[in-house]
């Protein structure tokens, strides 16, 4: 008798603890992979891209709704769909640039707060109105169903000139004293699904400026995500980045912060214009990167956005109260001496002079 009771209780625990309370089957759920957040006269316009299996193929459905809060808009979509919307598998957040310029702090507070959105989802900004963006994307999508997020995933279609930023990194930029991020900007493409336009520079969760793809590549090189990026030199030659090491030294002299950056870059030669020597390529590449860095840095410094996270190197030099004002007080006065040293590792199969 006691044994029987014990078994019944155990069995009850087993059924109750399987996590299937109020469970909805997978065919009654919609699992969007992309969420678009547009600006509709002050309200949010929320787009969801939902893949749907139809006859062993994937079809993509795009739904949208406007409201004052994102939750309400998603709720409205869910209301009008025959299935329940479940944001668990969201992989990509697409934000219209107007929203981003207004500030993303509320939005990212929400993304971090809610339980079902993964903080690892990627963040992308769109210059195009989201309605037409999604229409174009849907039109040029293959019937087998490609995912927009493959464009950005490191183990799929990502390229080193695309910034790679996740929700939690933007959230960190909103709160952290000494660190900002760059977010890729896209629009729908003509022959390809989307077209990469460069990156947006974020400061405290606000879009304040832009850098082009070449600059983004340098940015990624600097932050150690350069995986095989290609650089054009002397308008007919090109090299591929193999290895990068960045040494930084920082200090404060007379209240003025300074920083020496030495970037050792190892490249492989890809294209070489006739009549150009290796030495010329090396010299030109170093100068090109130095120039590019200085130009870009002057711009982001003027926008007071620390996307290179240079402030991290002053955390041991400045007290916390000063760090709090890093972006406004010390960062604009920061002097950076950037120097690139190039080593050409190999020339491929063909000898070079």
């Amino acid at each position, binding site marked *: 008798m006691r044994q029987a009771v014990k078994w019944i*209780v155990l069995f009850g*625990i087993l059924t*109750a*603890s399987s*996590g299937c*309370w*109020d*469970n909805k089957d997978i065919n009654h759920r919609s699992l969007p992979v992309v969420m678009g957040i547009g600006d509709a006269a002050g309200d949010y316009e929320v787009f969801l891209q939902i893949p749907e299996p139809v006859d062993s193929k994937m079809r993509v459905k795009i739904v949208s709704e406007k409201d004052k809060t994102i939750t309400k808009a998603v709720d409205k979509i869910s209301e009008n769909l025959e299935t329940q919307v479940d944001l668990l598998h969201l992989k990509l957040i697409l934000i219209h640039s107007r929203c981003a310029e207004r500030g993303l702090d509320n939005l990212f507070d929400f993304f*971090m707060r809610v*339980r*079902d959105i*993964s*903080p*690892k989802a990627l963040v992308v900004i769109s210059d195009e109105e989201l309605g037409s963006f999604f229409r174009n994307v849907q039109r040029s999508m293959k019937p087998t169903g490609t995912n927009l997020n493959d464009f950005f995933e*490191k*183990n799929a279609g990502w390229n080193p000139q695309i910034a790679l930023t*996740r929700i*939690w990194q933007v*959230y*960190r930029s*909103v*709160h*952290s*004293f*000494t*660190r900002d991020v760059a977010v890729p900007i896209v629009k729908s493409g003509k022959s390809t699904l989307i077209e990469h336009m460069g990156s947006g520079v974020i400061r405290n969760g606000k879009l304040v400026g832009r850098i082009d793809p070449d600059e983004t590549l340098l940015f990624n090189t600097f932050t150690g995500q350069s995986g095989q990026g290609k650089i054009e030199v002397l308008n007919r030659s090109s090299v591929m980045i193999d290895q990068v090491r960045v040494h930084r030294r920082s200090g404060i002299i007379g209240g003025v912060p300074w920083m020496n950056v030495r970037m050792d870059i190892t490249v492989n030669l890809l294209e070489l214009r006739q009549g150009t020597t290796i030495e010329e390529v090396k010299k030109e590449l170093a100068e090109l990167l130095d120039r590019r860095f200085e130009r870009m840095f002057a711009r982001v410094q003027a926008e007071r956005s620390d996307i290179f*996270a240079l402030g*991290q*190197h002053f*955390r*041991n030099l*400045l*007290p*916390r109260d000063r*760090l709090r004002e890093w972006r406004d007080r010390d960062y604009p006065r920061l002097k950076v001496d950037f120097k690139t040293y190039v080593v050409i590792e190999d020339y491929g199969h063909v000898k070079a002079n």
Partner: protein
Amino acid sequence: MARSLHVLLVYVVTHLGLIFFMYPEDIIASADEGHWVPILTGFAFHFAFLWIYMKGLSRGGGKDLTSLYLELGKVAAALLLLPVFVYFLMVNIITIRSYSEIITIVFLSNTPLWAIMLLLFLIPAWMASLGIRTIFRATFLVAAVCLPLVLFIFVSSFQNVDWRYVYPLLDKHYTFWNRISFYKSFFAYAGSFLFLGFVQPYFSYRIRTVLWTAVGILPLFLFSVYVPLLTFGESTASTFFFPYVVTLDMIQINWLMFERITVFFLMSLIIFVMLFVSLVLWQSSQIVGRFWPKAKTNWIIGGLFVVIFAGCLTVRSWNEVERLFIWNTWIRWYVLIVVPLTVYALGRRAERDAGGDRYAAGR
């Protein structure tokens, strides 16, 4: 020695269950910079009183906590043990309530709270009714399965760390002394160490190995706070309720087939917490049993189960959990300081008496 291993595992596992949730938040809230100072202060405190407590127990000659107190007479013992008993009850209420809240926040958002609490409590209560040996054996098994997993995830949580967030290393004007969250953080220490006084007759252990184990888990205390700090920076990490759990959500391991490894980590920790709950429940049943020898252990545990579960149900929101925590602070100090000191005094007395007896027996 093998018996000693069981005790050490219980010590490690119960602390692991407590460290990774509320502790990081409390420490981060208690200081703006240089968080290692409050961590080490708390730890040194725990270490010192752990040593005093075990020293007292060993001088008492293998008697358990209740017997030591009972030598003072029933009334005095009851008075001294009442706060401990109340503390055990409250710890169980708080633990079950807050961990079921964590479970709802992190994965079972549809399951009603009472069901989670019931499950979280039923299994520990069953274990407690089977006695301390069962709890220890279960701990051994669970540790063998879950500890490697927990350590693996712990190591991979360093993925997004930026060591420069460690600065500023020192705070010029430490204020953690007068912040309540610093005192709340002692929850992680106070909950479990008393068990060393209850297992004495069943399992033996060496003081030195326990102290080394305590030092061994110090890195876990440090990094449960520092991993979120180093990933996000203080100003971001202080916006989270469970900073370490949030940090785990950021881990990206492409070759692992699971997307959210947080779930595995939390599952292991929740099993650890279940062991902790059953241990505390067993201890409180031991106290009751000594004062009321006629009652059957199972009935005592059943009664305690009803009381604690009713207590859990009356807590409605996270704010109330926090308030319970703060009320609890006073009894926690009693458990952390007064109990080790009195045990030490009683142990010395017992030793002296034993010595006197030997002398009187005509050696």
